[in-house]
């Protein structure tokens, strides 16, 4: 029973913290968010050089053999800076899925370039009207002439328009909501028939709607087993949950610092706001929620590779708690800041927005409360 980081992990944490500290002040972040790709390609190269993009991958493909705890360390630090780069999309979701279920050829073709920052992955699993039901897949992949023709629509693909490869879930058998019959395909984004419509999201990150119109891929584009893609997809999204939980803890931690600082300096009625007992108790509630969220985020990272039911139970618990804690921290920080907390120019509401977005990703509190109960 040991919650401490290894020496390597501590060095990693220090290194990411330093990057965020030096390169990611709020104004610089906002400028980046307004650019066309919505993040910095230069930062991305830095991530690659510092080895962050390969942290969780096997050494055989050029990675560092780390775990979900390592990527959680990176994402918690990213959370503090509201980092915009597509680490979650390309490394945590796309990369890990490919590393787990992709063939040796697929891995060799893609992962080294992902790790070196030359190419990016995105995971296209959500469909309009699916809400959080993973088995709701209407995009179809037909087996034709020794390959597949994929047709359908995917929604809210995280960093979907800047990805070089898309991992797409498509139905190869069964009806629209059957659990079996969903397969995963690795699709080059430049393939004819792939159309992306990029947009900014409320938290400054980039999303895209994806149209697939008779997109032709070879039979080697299939990732993992035919019809059995859902299991590995769920695992990858649980990995994503561990990631956003860590990121949310970074957001909450920073929000708490910012609000605490404001409470100590902002004067009303001739005294600092922080001298009011109501403020003190509310800050204490925020502190407790943040600490407990951190505990569950650690648990989540450690349990990503547990047996499925144990993993689901842990990840859903963390997601529920962090959704609620994130709402508390976000709303209270805005409230305690008063009018200025509602303006675009202050950083506080942007943390609130990111926490709100995180709650919607990979299933909200209601969804995970249900999944949690189902793991008994």
């Amino acid at each position, binding site marked *: 029973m040991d919650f401490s980081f290894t020496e390597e992990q501590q060095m990693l944490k220090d290194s990411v913290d330093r990057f965020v500290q030096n390169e990611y002040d709020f104004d610089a972040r906002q400028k980046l968010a307004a650019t066309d790709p919505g993040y910095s390609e230069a930062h991305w190269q830095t991530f690659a050089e510092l080895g962050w993009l390969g942290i969780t991958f096997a050494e055989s493909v050029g990675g560092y053999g780390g775990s979900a705890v390592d990527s959680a360390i990176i994402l918690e630090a990213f959370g503090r800076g509201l980092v915009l780069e597509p680490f979650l999309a390309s490394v945590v979701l796309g990369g890990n899925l490919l590393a787990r279920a992709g063939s040796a050829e697929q891995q060799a073709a893609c992962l080294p370039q992902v790790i070196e920052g030359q190419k990016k992955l995105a995971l296209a699993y*959500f469909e*309009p*009207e*699916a*809400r*959080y*039901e993973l088995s709701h897949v209407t995009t179809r992949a037909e087996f034709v002439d020794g390959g597949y023709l994929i047709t359908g629509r995917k*929604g*809210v693909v995280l960093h979907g328009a800047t990805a070089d490869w898309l991992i797409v879930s498509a139905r190869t058998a069964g009806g629209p*909501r059957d659990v079996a019959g969903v397969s995963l395909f690795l699709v080059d984004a430049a393939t004819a028939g792939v159309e992306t*419509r990029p*947009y*900014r*999201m*409320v*938290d400054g990150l980039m*999303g895209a*709607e994806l149209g697939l119109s008779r997109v032709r891929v070879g039979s080697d584009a299939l990732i993992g087993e035919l019809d059995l893609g859902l299991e590995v997809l769920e695992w990858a999204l649980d990995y994503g949950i561990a990631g956003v939980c860590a990121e949310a803890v970074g957001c909450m931690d920073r929000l708490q610092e910012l609000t605490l600082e404001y409470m100590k300096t902002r004067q*009303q*009625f*001739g005294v600092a706001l922080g001298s009011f007992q*109501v403020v003190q108790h509310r800050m204490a509630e925020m502190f407790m929620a943040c600490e407990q969220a951190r505990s569950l985020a650690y648990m989540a990272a450690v349990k990503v590779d547990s047996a499925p039911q144990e993993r689901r139970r842990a990840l859903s618990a963390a997601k529920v708690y962090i959704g609620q804690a994130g709402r508390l921290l976000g*709303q209270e920080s*805005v*409230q305690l800041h*008063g*009018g200025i*907390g*509602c*303006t*675009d*120019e202050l950083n506080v*509401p*942007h943390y*609130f*927005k990111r926490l*709100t*977005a995180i709650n*919607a*990703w990979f299933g*909200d509190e*209601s969804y995970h*409360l*249900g999944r949690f109960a189902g793991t008994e």
Partner: protein
Amino acid sequence: MELNFTAEDQAFRAEVRDFIEANYPIELKRKVEAGLELGKDDYVRWQKILHAKGWIAPKWPVEFGGTGWSPTQRYIFEEELTAASTPRIIPFGLAMLGPVLMEYGSKSQQARYLPDILSSDTWWAQGYSEPGAGSDLASLKTRAEPQGDHYLVNGSKIWTTYGHYADWIFCLVRTSQEEKKQKGISFLLIDMNDPGISVAPIITADGKHVVNQVFFEDVRVPKENLVGEEGAGWTIAKFLLGHERTNIAGVAASKRQVLRIKEIAGREQSGGRSLLQDQRYRDKLSQLEIELLALEYTNLRVLSAEAAGQQIGPEASLLKVKGTEVQQRITELLVEAVGYYALPYDLDALRFGWQEREPIGPDYAAVLAPHYFDWRKSSIYGGSNEIQKNIISKAVLGL
């Protein structure tokens, strides 16, 4: 105890409803229902329609252009306006400055300003808050130094709603530094076209421009623009606090929003049925509806007491706190309803709708998260909910 409306009330309701149906422009209604941005023209257009009918200022005395309605009729009128998704009546002139001028203004001030307020020919803004004075309004710093026949105004006001539309602004200013801080405050009317005034937009968390910071640099304001005595500003501000609280609970608007939730949740799918049939979501909605019922009947109790001639006191604080809690909860449930499609952000779609463009996700989704973020302000402005609880604790409970 009679909680149903009388036949006269019902007839009045029908009359209001018929008028709105016949006169409310459909393109305006569509904007309001979709939660889109209204411009100055939109507001003025609707207010002039009501003015033409003589219904723009139901709370004003008849001699100034009011309607002479009972509190219950006014309540019904507000209910019907809201139920029909009409634009809100901009309160700064009609609900705020008007009553102040009637109570504290000179005859000539009344003659000069009230008609244009009534006809919506003048757009007024409110100059209360300052960067350093939020909930602690009495610590405001904008100075108005008496110099001969005018005041020289220097300072800044913040959170000025629609300051960029305003022709005039009424301000709390400090005309004396020496006395107890409440006593040095005066109530001044300032022409927004005066030299030395500048308006800087403040972009709120939803990305929109509604509020502003207004700067005053050596602005010369004639002394005849002072309302009441010098130093009467704090008294006037407190008087206004009562008037500002008309419809503070926002029950009718929240009822309309609950219908919107039901419509949207009825269209959203969850596990093969509508989200509205999902027990977990439905329970949250039921809980909200019950809170809203509690608020509605509390509001009606206050209305009934008012109609019986009782003064509304700190009960208004309850209506403010619970009213905004319900409103904020509504915005949360709307965000929850659309799942992933709460995330895309498109400023044009938020302001004007998707128009000719294909929507990202369902067309109703674009406004929901921005409204959620923006509406956090409701528990901050108009006396923050913390201030309201202080008021309850002191004025009602004697703590």
